[in-house]
Each structure stands twice: as structure tokens, then as C-alpha cells.
């Protein structure tokens, strides 16, 4: 058995005698006998570390879909981007990994400054002045943005583009059961949101939206003009939430530039491994107007008693530990380590690297899309422009196609699924900068074989 407890038998005996107790059981006197667990936990006995590691390695080996064995064309909100050794090494420093929330700033300047740098980078990516210290993931960032928007506008109706990730919309819907927000989804048509026609009579009627949420690029990888969404907000006083891909931000106009009040997104692409979906990194940026409604932690710069620059978590009165039931959000533990990781990775990329990253994804995506569409029976799912991901119609059901491709060593994408018209015969394909021409050619050949 492995134990991480220092105490020897003698230690325990000495301590018990100091307490005047006869046995460790006496420590639990307050626990009523009737409730105590008889017979111990129904779990196997402890094992040595090497055995445990071997067990987990066996489980890991049972995953065929792993980027070191299968070439990954799956995206849908989780991307196979380069994670250089330097990011891994630095983000793995145990001072970052094993520290607590930086509530004692005098001994936490490392994490605080890294998060301050992260906030600055996220704000710049978003084109907005304020960013928080992270949320759980893209989905939770959408939920918090909706909550902020409703609180700011005072109106519980939320218009969502279908282009927002289906899981994130689902998460928002789950949360809405508690908040009572009224979520309404507007479908995509040829890859862009079919918002109501503003000139149509009786729209939006007597329940105008308090929040409008649109994705950029959207779930289908498409770029849509955000002006209509902004126009709806201007008309109704709604808060515009742009769900933006921070990688594409290297090439695309920022949410702020489009007039977003809130920009949210998923930061996994910046140094965090796919990890079967978590831990990831929720990004959240907003304007000064909404500062007091910002969810989650915020790091600010200040000085110490000798006037030296220092960092500290600030505006804590928004937070649940102080504000309790009136807090802007219930988030406490967030995803700090991923935020620190992203700050490192964005430092590694720099201005030119982010552009190059976006450019490489876009080129590889275009080449792959063109080649797939040249296959008989493979058709475009939408015609709007794309930069890293796109959907195609497939002559065989996407699920079947994926199984066939898996057999050939490709994680071929993500099935679009029934929510989207014809989605069961549609595949969402992401092509990151890690894909080479040779991989793409082999993939296209495999798809060609698999669809016939």
C-alpha cells in the first residue's frame, strides 16, 4: 500500500497519549455509533505506486484515439495544437501546480503576476479592456456571460445563435432551469445565423432580448457578419456576447471590434492538452461598464508598503466568499493553472506566432476542404468562409465514416449530429497547424476509400 502519511505507529501512539485518548476510534466520538461505517469501505486495499501506475497505464492503453497514435482532425471546441516542451516544463513548475488560490499575495506574486499577464493577453485578444482570471471552460463562460447580460439588461430573454457550440448551449439551458432565463435559439442557414428580420413587423415584440449570443467562428467553423447581432442589441438595448475562438483571433477582427459587450471563449488551444475534455480554460472579457458584474476572480496591480509593484486579487466584494447569495457568480476554484499555462503559451507565440498559427491553420484547412470536396459524394455543408474548421456532407452516416477512419488511424472529425439538418450525414473537420500535407493527403485518401 502506498501512504502519503508521515506518521509512524509510535507517532500516533504519542499523539493519542498527549490527547489522553486510547485509540484513534476515540477521535470520532462525535460520530453517532449508528451511523458509523461497519466493515470498511467497499474498495480494494491500497496498492503500491508502481501497481497503480501500471493500472492507469493499462486504461490509457485502451484508448485508441490518442494523438500519438491517431492523426487528429477532430475539433468542435477542442483542438490538437502544438504544446512545446517549454510550455509543459514551465507550467509544470510545482510552485504553480501545488499552490493555493493567491489569497496571501505576499507569498503568491508568482501566480498573481502570471494571471495579471494572462488577463492582459485575453483582453487584447478580445479587444476589450477587462478580462477575468478564468472560468471553468467555454461552456461556463457562456453561462456566466448570459447571467451578466440578463443582470445588466434586466431582461431574461436570451437570443442564442445555433452557431454557439451545442454543448455550451446545453449547459446554458441547464443553468437556465435555475435562473429562469428564457433561452431562444436561432438556427443557422448555410452556416450563418438566421436572426429575425429587423424590418419584419412585430419583431421582437414585447419580450425583446436582454442578451444576444453569437459565435465567431461558429460551430460549423463559419465566419459570419456580426453586424446584424450588434444591430439587434442596439435596437433592444441587449448585451452582445461574442463567443470567439481565441486562436482565430490572430486573424479575425476581435469581438470588441465588432462591438461586443462580452467576449467569451475556450482557451484550451493555448497549451492545454486535449485531456478528454478537461481541465480546460474559460475566457471572459468585458467592458468597464460591466466591471462590477464580472464573474470570478480578478487580479489587479497595486503596491506594497514600500511602494513596490505588487499584485492582488481585487474587487473581491463581487465574489461569493464575501457577497454570498448576492455574488455575481458562485465560482470559487477556477482554472488558474490553465490560465498560467495560456499566458506562457501566448508568450511563446507572441504577436508573430499567433498570426502564423492562424495562417497555418487556415491554409491547411483550405487545402483539406478542397481535397475532401473533390471526393465523389462529399459536399459542402455550408458556403460561408472558414479558417480552421468546416463541415461537409458525407454519403455514408458520419458515425460510420468515423469508425472506418479510426480503423485507418484517423480521428476523422466530429459527427455534426441530429440537431443540425442532415447532420447525421455531416462531418465537422478541424485542421490545425500540427497537420502536415502528408497527413492530409493520407486522410483524404482514407475518406475517399471509406465513403465508397
Amino acid at each position, binding site marked *: *500500500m502506498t501512504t502519503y*502519511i*508521515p506518521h509512524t505507529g509510535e507517532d500516533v501512539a504519542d*499523539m493519542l497519549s*498527549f490527547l489522553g485518548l486510547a485509540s*484513534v476510534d476515540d*477521535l470520532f466520538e462525535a460520530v*453517532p455509533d449508528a*451511523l458509523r461505517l461497519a466493515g*470498511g*469501505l*467497499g*474498495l480494494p486495499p491500497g496498492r503500491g505506486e508502481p501497481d*497503480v*501506475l501500471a493500472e492507469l497505464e493499462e*486504461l490509457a492503453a485502451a484508448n*485508441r484515439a490518442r*494523438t*500519438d497514435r491517431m492523426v487528429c482532425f477532430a475539433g468542435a471546441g477542442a483542438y490538437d495544437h502544438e504544446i512545446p516542451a517549454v510550455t509543459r516544463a514551465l507550467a509544470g513548475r*510545482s*510552485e*504553480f501546480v501545488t*499552490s493555493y*488560490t493567491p489569497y*496571501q499575495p505576499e507569498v503568491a*506574486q508568482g501566480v498573481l503576476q502570471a494571471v495579471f499577464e494572462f488577463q492582459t493577453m485575453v483582453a487584447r485578444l478580445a479587444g476589450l479592456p*477587462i478580462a477575468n482570471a478564468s472560468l*471553468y471552460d467555454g*461552456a*461556463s463562460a457562456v453561462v456566466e456571460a448570459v*447571467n451578466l447580460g440578463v443582470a445588466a439588461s434586466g431582461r431574461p430573454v436570451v437570443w442564442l445563435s445555433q452557431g454557439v457550440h451545442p454543448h*455550451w448551449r446545453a449547459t446554458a439551458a441547464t*443553468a437556465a432551469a*435555475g435562473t429562469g432565463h428564457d433561452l431562444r435559439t436561432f438556427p443557422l442557414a448555410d452556416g450563418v445565423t438566421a436572426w429575425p428580420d429587423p424590418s419584419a413587423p412585430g419583431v421582437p415584440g414585447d419580450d425583446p432580448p436582454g442578451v444576444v449570443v453569437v459565435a465567431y467562428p461558429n460551430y460549423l467553423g463559419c465566419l459570419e457578419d456580426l453586424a446584424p447581432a450588434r444591430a439587434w442589441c442596439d435596437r433592444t438595448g441587449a448585451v452582445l456576447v461574442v463567443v470567439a475562438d481565441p486562436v482565430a*483571433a490572430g486573424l479575425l477582427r476581435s469581438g470588441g*471590434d465588432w462591438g461586443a459587450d462580452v467576449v467569451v471563449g475556450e482557451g484550451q488551444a493555448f497549451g492545454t*492538452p486535449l*485531456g*478528454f475534455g*478537461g481541465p480546460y480554460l474559460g475566457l471572459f472579457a468585458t467592458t468597464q461598464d460591466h466591471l462590477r458584474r464580472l464573474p470570478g476572480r480578478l487580479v*489587479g*496591480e497595486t503596491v*506594497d508598503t514600500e511602494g513596490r*509593484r505588487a*499584485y492582488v486579487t481585487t474587487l473581491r466584494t463581487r465574489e461569493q466568499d464575501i457577497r454570498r447569495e*448576492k*455574488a455575481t457568480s458562485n465560482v470559487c476554484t*477556477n*482554472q*488558474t493553472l490553465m490560465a498560467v499555462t495560456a499566458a*506562457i503559451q*501566448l508568450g511563446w*507565440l*507572441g504577436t508573430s506566432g499567433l*498570426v502564423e*498559427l492562424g495562417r*497555418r491553420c487556415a*491554409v491547411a484547412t483550405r487545402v483539406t476542404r478542397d481535397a475532401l470536396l473533390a471526393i465523389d459524394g462529399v459536399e459542402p455543408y455550408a458556403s460561408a468562409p472558414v479558417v480552421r474548421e468546416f463541415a461537409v456532407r458525407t454519403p455514408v452516416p458520419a*458515425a460510420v465514416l468515423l469508425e472506418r477512419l479510426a480503423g485507418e488511424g484517423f*480521428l476523422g472529425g466530429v459527427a455534426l449530429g441530429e440537431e443540425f439538418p442532415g447532420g447525421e450525414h455531416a462531418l465537422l473537420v478541424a485542421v490545425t497547424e500540427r497537420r502536415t500535407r502528408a497527413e492530409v493527403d493520407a486522410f483524404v485518401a482514407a475518406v475517399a476509400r471509406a465513403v465508397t
Partner: protein
Amino acid sequence: MSAPGGRATSAPLLGRDEEPTIFELSKAGRRAWSFRTGGFPETDVEDLVPALHRRPDPVDLPEVSERDLVAHVTRLSSRQFSVDLGAYPLGSCTMKYNPKMCDAVAALPGLAGVHPAAPASTVQGWLALLVELEEALCAITGMAGATLQPAAGAAGELTGLLLMRAWHEAQGRPRHTVIIPDSAHGTNPASVTLGGYQVVTVASDERGCVDMAALHRVLDDDVAGIMLTNPNTLGLFEEDIAEIAAAVHGVGGLLYYDGANLNAILGVVRPGDMGFDIVHMNLHKTFATPHGGGGPGAGPVAVAERLLPFLPGPRPVRVAGGDGDGLAYDWQVPSRSIGRVHGWHGNALVLARALAYIRANGADGLRRVAETAVLNANWLRHRLSGVLDVAYDRPCMHEVVFSAQRLRRAYGVKASDVGKRLLEYGFHAPTVAFPLVVDEALMVEPTETESPETLEALAAALEAIVSEAADDASVVTGAPTSTPVGRVDEARAARRLVATFDARPPAGD
């Protein structure tokens, strides 16, 4: 005597130089990045992105060499205290040692390199892992099933409240209030609000436990349930828990268990056996996954049989005898699922660490964890009983709350001052200003991974600080002076918010 985990020398924390921000280290044209050679045609951004969408100027990010990036971040890390450097006797947070073996697990390419949307047939290992973890957590809590999706404790709370709401709605009688003791953590009331309920607070009695009379006064059929931590945030076991459960169930309410303090009772008593219907766990506390400077965590929620149909989905499940596709594990959406509470399946790599920790400890080891955690806390309580006032003078569970009220009255030394001074003795500060029911609270949770020598060093340091307060309070109220920065002006940070480098006032301002 030397104190292995406690004489956390402050060495890494004594630097007095500022570290410039990475933006100040940036010089246009420097570069660290490199990508795979793709072999695709060189294409300009102009040809790839339509003008409407194209960003006019690139995002301004720092441009540094790899060497400078490494130096900067390594130096930042040297300005950061951590469990690996020394003890963190931080109440409610269970800052125990995080085994390195679990880091190795989280780094396995077969776990870390897996896309979350890969077909079930290609991720049988992950599905098995999640199912095994769920089963283990149910065994530990005495519950019937669990969701692993919530990303942290607070997310688990909200999930639990939404389950509560769904259940009541399914019973056809929606309710409006949730009861919370006044000693509860702030996330509880915040989650209750987000769950669409009104908070009803019940006071603690002189024992530090739920005041039964007060509870009975607020119990009615509009009560959806009660949220409790047990042991509670005072480190005290709610001895009346069976009576509480009966009373709440009696009015048709549900019991929610905030698992932040689960470490105290592993293998000793199970929330399910106490009568709880919904239980969240903080894997980053009880199951030793690292806090990462404030996250990630994981907050699985386990429930009683009758709540199973409402669990978030899709859930990983064992397929009896293999399903149609011959899979041993698959995804399944519970019949009346409240829906997703995470973008994917939860903080999966955190979950993998927790399973490794549970397997290493096993049934026997987990019970020893609880025993030793409680032993350590009681030893400290007893050791310091003449030194600091114990908020509730009776045996505690895994943590003990002291009060610095007397120090404040006599010398103007607050609990937070004691905490700041303790930093200079090489320990992290205890939790201060929580729980709210104790004036000048100093909440200490030593955890089972600290040795008796470390506890003694901690006690001696607190003893010394109390003497210092009496001799020259300014030594304590002026602390710390030997940390990378001295006391930080928190008020100014809020008053003159500088939350990004770009918001910094021009130099000289």
C-alpha cells in the same frame, strides 16, 4: 526538533526585486515559436480571410526569446509559495501533499492526448476510468450514482441544487427555499441563488452546530432542502445529523452534503448513511489533486437512488455484456437528465489523478487518511489551547478554528496579522475571516500529510507570534517584511483598478 514539512524555509519568497511583466521584456521581432513543417503552400492572410473579417493589426502579444520566457516564468515561480515548499495549514481547503505519481498519470499520452469527442469505441479506457471513479466515489459516500461533470465544488453545488429542483418539479411540487447554516461557505448561498432558490439561514448554537430549535422553526413545505457540511466549517461534527435528516425529509426536503470536509470522515461514516441525498466532493481537497494556484478542481456530485434519473448526461456507463457494437462502456443520457453542466465530461485529467490516489490508498488507506487528519487537528488544538482561544472548546474533526479576538482587543493584532506574520515563519497563513460566525477566526487544517514535527513547528511559531503581539505588536501588524513584497495595499487595488498591463497609469503617475 526539525520540522520536515513545516520548516518551509521562506527562501524562495525573500526576493525583494520586482520582476518586470512579460510586456516589459518584449522586443518586437523576438521569437520563441516554431511549428511543424506542414508542406502547405505559402499563402497570405489576405487570401485566406475575407476583408470583412480580417483583423487590421495583429494582436499585440509579448515578443520574447525562449530563453527570456523561461527566465521570466521561472523567476515568477520563485516568488510563489506552494505545498511542495512547505505546509499550508489552511482551513476548509485541505492543502495536502499532491503525489507526484498522479502527475505522471495525468501526463500519460493515452490519457492526455485523447480528444473528448472521439467515438466511444476509441476511448474505452477513458470510459472505464470514469466509471471506476464514479463507483469508488459512490462507495466512499454511500450513494447510488454520480456525475463527474462539475468542474469544482461550486459547480457541484449548483448541479446539486438543479437536481433538487428537478426532483421537486418531478414530484409536482416546486419549492422555494433552501436552508443553510450561518457557518456555511459563501459558495453555498451563491449557488442557492443560482439554483433559483431563496436562502434561509439557520444560526449555529453554542456548540457550533445547527441549532435544532431554529431549524425546526424554518422547516416547512416550501423548503426544497438543506445544505450542510459535516463536519461543518468549524471542524465540528453535526451530531444531530440523523435528527436533521429526519426533520428535513419529514417536510419533503432533500439533504445536500457539501463535501469540502469529506477528508475528515473517509471510511468512518458516509454521507449517504447520514441521510444525505446529494453529495458533492472536492477532488482537489479530499483526493489530493493539486490546487494549481486556484484551480483546476473537480466537483463530482453523487446522489441517492431516487435522483439517478436526473443526473447530468451523457454519463459513462458499463454496458452489461457489451452493447450492440460490442462495447464494454458507452455514453448514456439519464431519462430525466437536467442536462449538461460542463462543455465535455468534466475535468477529466483531474478525475484520473483522483482515481490513482484512491487506488493507491485503498479502503484501508483512506480511513487512515481521515484518522490522521483528525488526529493532527486535535493534537494542534490541544497543543495550542493555552496559547490561542479555541472558538469551540471541544474535540474537533479535521480542522480547528481559533479566535484572535483577545489579541485584537489587547494589542490590536488581528487574525489576519497573525496569518501574515506566520508567513515569515515559513508557513502559509491559516484561513482568516471565515467562518463568519467566529470573530477573528483562524481556521487551521493541518491535513494528514504533515508530520508531528511540522505540527510542533507550527504550534511553536504561533506561540512565538502571540508573545510578539504582547511584546511589540508592530512586529506582527507590520509583517511580513521578508517576503518578495511586503503587505500589499488591497484597498488601492480596488480603488484604482489596474487589471491589465494596458490599464496601468503612465509612468510617473
